[in-house]
């Protein structure tokens, strides 16, 4: 996913979809039938053997505004054509969304041909938009059986933009034109773009582009910087809503340097083979979305903060694909309602935060509970079979070193998306601290007492249960405590595979540069970590043998 590094972008999660529901229910004083783990069991890779015609089509997207919007557009269009839908918005990365699609856990998500070619196929040379589309279509079908439907009509590729006034006064419309005047201009570029072969480095060669000055600028500030005249030229993406908002002109890539990033629905083999009606519905979008349309829609979403459902509905009715939406609440009320302090914002979302916290605790509790059930007896058993101990520890240690996102991605073919793989990953991460502390705690428990117990006729089982275990209890608890605190943090990543929890507002807020939304996930998560630490710290002291506590 090319945007992950340099450009955190708008993310809307199903949180926003959930918000009105939850608040409504809260106001009505109803207890929350929150989307809990039970509700997510449907996220298994192999759906229950239901009739192929009625099984909901799983519609996913990646965690940035445009992808979320397109996913929602797909979903609403399918629903309008009578196809039931299961939404999985904002899956963690190209890797995760694509694996889920290949595994059949996802039926469709919006993808870009350039990403398919360069990231998924790992090729380095692009070509014309048409040849890239033909190539990914053929190779994806051959290798994985997945299909690229017809392109939606726009490209979201790199863009080089200037103020309209600059373009007009210098008479520039293309990158070739820019190259002529570049020595007089100041460019503000994201560091990511500056370093990439398909960014500034390649652009210099392709157009003999030499700016008077290049300043590194972060994504968040570059639009304002160019609008206010601090720089003259910036890089961006061709469908950024901000290009529209700040009235910038995108210079045409007249030498075809940037790889083509045509957007199209990428669909699973099963959907392609079994659901002609769904396929036909998605096909209706072919060629309908041009770049200015997308820029406007992205602006509604990112700049005006209109909920993604509404932007999608407006877009579909504008295209004449569904009936016009009822104009319930006129005016583009933003996602946060009236601006207020952080406290008021958090209070306003208490229902959602509580629901997410409960979900978070489920993820942590289930995974930790399973780890305790496995690793404590496992660690104690290793004391009696020390020959295997090193190997087992090393195995658990290796699990620990696998990056979380990679582990989640590996599990998609086995477990699909949702709570199942999230709990499994957290379980695997919890094993090592609990196992190691159980083993070493029991092994190193007062050797003199262990020897004396044995010499006076305690069986090895009695030594284990009556000496080693009670003496190791605080050490074991310390391991559980470590695992729990790590788990509370790691569980925020579960949001990337559609498992919910407090990671949802963090991921969404990060992509939106919406600090309050980040905090609405991060603060409860931090608080939860502290509370878990304190509570388990108490438990750790409580399980310390009386005789040892008084001595210390």
């Amino acid at each position, binding site marked *: 996913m090319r945007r992950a590094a340099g450009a955190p972008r708008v993310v809307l999660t199903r949180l926003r979809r959930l918000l009105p529901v939850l608040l409504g229910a809260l106001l009505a004083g109803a207890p929350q039938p929150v989307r809990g783990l039970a509700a997510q069991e449907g996220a298994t890779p192999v759906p229950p053997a239901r009739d192929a015609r009625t099984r909901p089509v799983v519609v996913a997207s990646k965690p940035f505004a445009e992808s979320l919007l397109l996913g929602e557009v797909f979903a609403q269009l399918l629903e309008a054509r009578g196809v039931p839908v299961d939404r999985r918005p904002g899956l963690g990365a190209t890797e995760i969304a694509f694996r889920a699609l290949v595994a059949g856990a996802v039926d469709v998500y919006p993808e870009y041909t350039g990403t398919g070619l360069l990231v998924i196929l790992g090729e380095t040379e692009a070509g014309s938009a048409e040849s890239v589309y033909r190539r990914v279509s053929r190779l994806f079908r051959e290798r994985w059986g997945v299909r690229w439907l017809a392109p939606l009509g726009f490209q979201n590729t790199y863009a080089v933009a200037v103020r309209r006034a600059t373009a007009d006064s210098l008479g520039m419309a293309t990158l070739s034109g820019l190259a002529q005047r570049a020595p007089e201009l100041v460019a503000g570029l994201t560091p990511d773009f500056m370093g990439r072969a398909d960014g500034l480095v390649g652009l210099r060669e392709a157009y003999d582009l030499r700016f008077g000055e290049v300043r590194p600028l972060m994504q968040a500030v570059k639009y304002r910087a160019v609008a206010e005249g601090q720089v003259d030229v910036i890089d961006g993406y061709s469908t950024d809503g901000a290009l529209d908002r700040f009235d910038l002109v995108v210079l045409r890539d007249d030498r075809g340097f940037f790889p083509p990033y045509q957007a199209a629905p990428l669909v699973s083999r099963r959907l392609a083979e079994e659901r002609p009606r769904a396929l036909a519905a998605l096909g209706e979008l072919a060629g309908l979305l041009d770049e200015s349309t997308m820029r406007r829609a992205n602006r509604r979403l990112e700049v005006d903060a209109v909920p993604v459902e509404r932007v999608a509905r407006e877009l579909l009715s504008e295209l004449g694909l569904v009936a016009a939406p009822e104009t319930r609440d006129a005016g583009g009320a933003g996602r946060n309602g009236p601006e207020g302090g952080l406290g008021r914002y958090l209070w306003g979302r208490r229902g959602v935060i509580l629901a997410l916290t409960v979900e978070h605790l489920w993820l942590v509790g289930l995974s930790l509970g399973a780890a305790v059930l496995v690793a404590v007896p496992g660690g104690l058993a290793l004391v009696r079979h020390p020959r295997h101990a090193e190997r087992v520890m090393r195995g658990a240690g290796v699990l620990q070193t696998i990056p979380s996102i990679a582990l989640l991605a590996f599990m998609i073919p086995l477990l699909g998306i949702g709570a199942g793989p999230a709990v499994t990953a957290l379980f695997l991460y919890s094993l090592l601290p609990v196992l190691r502390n159980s083993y070493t705690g029991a092994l190193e428990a*007062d050797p*003199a*007492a262990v*020897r*004396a*117990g*044995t*010499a*006076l*006729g*305690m*069986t090895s089982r*009695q030594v284990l249960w*009556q*000496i080693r275990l*009670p*003496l190791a209890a605080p050490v074991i608890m310390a391991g559980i405590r470590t695992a729990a605190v790590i788990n509370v943090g790691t569980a925020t990543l579960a949001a990337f595979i559609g498992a919910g929890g407090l990671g949802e507002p963090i991921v969404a807020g990060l992509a939106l540069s919406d600090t309050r939304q980040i905090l609405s996930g991060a603060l409860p998560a931090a608080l939860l970590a502290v509370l878990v630490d304190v509570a388990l710290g108490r438990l750790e002291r409580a399980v310390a*043998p*009386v*005789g*040892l506590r*008084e*001595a210390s």
Partner: protein
Amino acid sequence: MRGPLSFETAPALEGRGLVKKYHAHRALDGVDVRVERGEAVALVGESGSGKTTLLRTFNALVRPDAGEARVEGRPVAGEDPVALRRRTGYVPQEGGLLPHWTVLRNASLVPTLLGMPDAAERGRAALARVGLDPDVFGPRHPLQLSGGQRQRVALARALAADPPVILLDEPFGALDALTRGELVETFREALAAPGTSALLVTHDLRVAFRLAQRVAVLKDGRILRCDTPEALRARPGDAYVAALLARGGVA
């Protein structure tokens, strides 16, 4: 060969031709030793002489490579080690009390393991025998006691089930001289009880001479001399033994 009928008259402990090798090192290099019923024998020698290894062959903590160890006439090798250990008293160095158990529970350990219904009573009686008031010390935990008191509890634990044989492995090793002096008297009284046999490992010859009827001097896994304190003093019979006695202050 001794038959089953001779168990009652067999020596309390008997080792014949005991060999124990750790890689190339011979910790025991052909040892013969006897402890008669009611007798206390001390094993003395420098560190590494094999005295602790020899002691541990009698409760199956060490399995000899050759030779045979017998307890009351029965070969150790043919016995369930757990059952053997439960009827053999044992006092390790530095006590080895279970720190998470009360003193009384520690003292009652072996009777409890043996399933004796009066285990707690036996623990209390044993504490009283070693000079600790069970009402005062019973509810405490080992780490609340002094080093000498802990060794008394360890002795009480070894005595509580009235074992015919008690093995003592450097029971005074970690104690200061004053505490040791008081404790030795308590141990002497305990070992003097009728029918009690003991094997004691110590590097302290004064303790050995005070507690044991016979003293065996070990060097490099062999017993150089084994005799009464008086006989050893009178005729060391070996330059090494004489030097050891002199250094130990008992010559």
